[in-house]
């Protein structure tokens, strides 16, 4: 098992490296750098060059990448070009916000989707089945930002039940209740897509499992329907659904980008957009590195969960 893990990680390293190289190439290829964009345009060319030298932007691209890579090996992600803070710090201060929101959304999605999917499957063709399937499909089809704007419209502006944006109310003492109020709407929107997909997936997985022979055996043995469904069928049906969980890991960052924009949530997604607009390449490289690592870890986690849940699967 350990050998397998190590082998997977070794294979993944070149891919992660490739991602960073590709990102770097694209950033270099883009017209204009941060000096052109953010610095006072009336400065003389010489002054601008001096600033560039200061930031290390005047060196050859390959050299710049090499410097960055060397830093990463030593745990240093470089400094943001915008405010000279270490990249790790800039990402770190936003990470909590995104992580919190994403985990809340993930939990919400799964806690709703799995029961609904199971009940949908056990009462196939009922109104509940059709209704929840329709809702699931709608959740998957609606654009996140539109859903978000719509929720803001109803709950924040018309009904005034919830705050419009941000993570906390200014000037008010930090409280969990306040945080929760701010988090509900973005979490709902973020969870929508996953909730819809997982519901459909759970439902079809349950339907497959329930048709199998061992379920017939259990029923023939006289096991109560409740046990048949919730103990025997569910455990097997959940296997593919659980493995899906691992694959959601990279979405924790990506999916939040739009939602964070709509709700002004101060997270990594907003940071990414700011970094892109300002060509702040150390931050971008750091974020991409993080996401690539998450993709790899997510895949590994998914496989590990799969082999843990299904005794028939074992990796050598």
């Amino acid at each position, binding site marked *: 098992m350990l050998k397998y893990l190590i082998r997977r990680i070794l294979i993944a390293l070149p891919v992660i490296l490739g991602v960073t190289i590709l990102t770097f190439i694209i950033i270099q290829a883009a017209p204009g750098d941060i000096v052109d964009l953010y610095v006072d345009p009336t400065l003389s060319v010489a002054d601008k060059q001096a600033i560039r030298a200061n930031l290390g932007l005047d060196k050859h691209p390959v050299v710049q990448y090499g410097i960055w890579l060397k830093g990463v090996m030593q745990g240093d992600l470089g400094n943001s070009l915008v405010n000279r803070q270490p990249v790790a710090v800039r990402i770190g201060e936003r990470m909590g916000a995104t992580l919190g929101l994403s985990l809340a959304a993930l939990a919400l999605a799964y806690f709703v989707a799995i029961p609904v999917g199971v009940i949908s499957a056990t009462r196939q063709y009922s109104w509940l089945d059709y209704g929840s399937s329709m809702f699931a499909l709608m959740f998957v089809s*609606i*654009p996140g930002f539109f859903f978000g704007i719509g929720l803001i419209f109803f709950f924040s502006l018309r009904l005034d039940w919830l705050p419009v944006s941000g993570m906390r109310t200014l000037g008010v003492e930090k409280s969990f209740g306040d945080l929760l109020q701010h988090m509900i709407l973005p979490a709902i929107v973020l969870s929508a897509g996953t909730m819809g997909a997982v519901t459909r997936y759970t439902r079809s997985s349950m339907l497959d499992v329930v048709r199998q022979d061992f379920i017939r055996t259990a029923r023939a043995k006289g096991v109560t329907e409740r046990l048949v469904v919730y103990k025997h069928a569910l455990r097997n049906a959940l296997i593919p659904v659980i493995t899906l969980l691992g694959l959601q890991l990279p979405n924790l960052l990506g999916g939040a980008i739009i939602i964070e924009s709509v709700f002004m949530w101060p997270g990594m997604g907003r940071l990414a*957009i700011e970094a892109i607009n300002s060509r702040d390449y150390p931050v971008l490289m750091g974020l*991409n590195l993080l*996401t690539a690592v998450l993709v790899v870890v997510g895949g590994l986690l998914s496989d590990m969960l799969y082999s843990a849940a299904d005794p028939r699967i074992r990796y050598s």
Partner: protein
Amino acid sequence: MSIAKKLSPQAATPKEPKSDKNYVLRRFLRHKLAVVGLVILTVLVLTAVFAPQIAPYDPNKFDAVSMVDTPTREHLLGLDQVGRDVLSRVIYASRISLSVGVVAVGIYVIIGTVLGSLAGYYGGWVDIVLTRFADMFLSFPQIMLILVIVSMIGPSIWNIMVVLGLLGWPPIFRIVRGQFLTLRELDFVQAGRGMGAKDSRLIFRHILPNSMGPILVAATFGTATAILTEAALSYLGLGVQPPAASWGNLLIQAQSTTVIEKQPWLWVPPGMLIFISVLAINFVGDGLRDALDPRLKR
């Protein structure tokens, strides 16, 4: 008549008669939702194609006459913040939003099918190399990469089509490759080979046509995703640039709470249209998938 076709020696027919097009069509039509979706899509496509005839006003012209910007009988969806007719803009936007989806998917279906056929048919190191290549693409953090690339090469509708097209082929690749691996071993292919058919003939006339089912389903769902992605990118300002209208960038106006609350006619129509289009596509995709599934016995 179809039976005669199946028995004729020239036609290289698949094992299951279920892939006969009429049968699939009949099964599709039994799905009410799928049919509804298809109708909706047809309406949308026709609106997009005939936009110049249907739209009441020029989407870029400012109306200097009207007093108010709320919906009136002259302007059914009101005016936007600079005075353009919203309905016309939304109609013209459908051209862009829908076409981005179709073109992007078209690109990556072609790429994925070609690569998948090669990998699945020839196997060996061709397969290994191509599959690793596809895995690499799959491991990329998709959204981040799209954002970075699009913002770097400049936001425009063509760039988005190309980027989405170049990044979306691995799932199609996998499907086609899987189909080829399965179908390659079947009798009718072996028979063709035995009769001396060239590789290209086998690929294009025999195996590929029988793989179209899953490809079509994947392409349909892919279009839905592509439309959503374009909308999101345009909303972030990284997609279609104003004054050109796409449903996504029409929603940019809804970033202020005043607009959200007081001028819903600005953001509700484009958002709803994205929603309805994607929903319709998903209906059709579901119907297609069920109609093409050889295992379903309803």
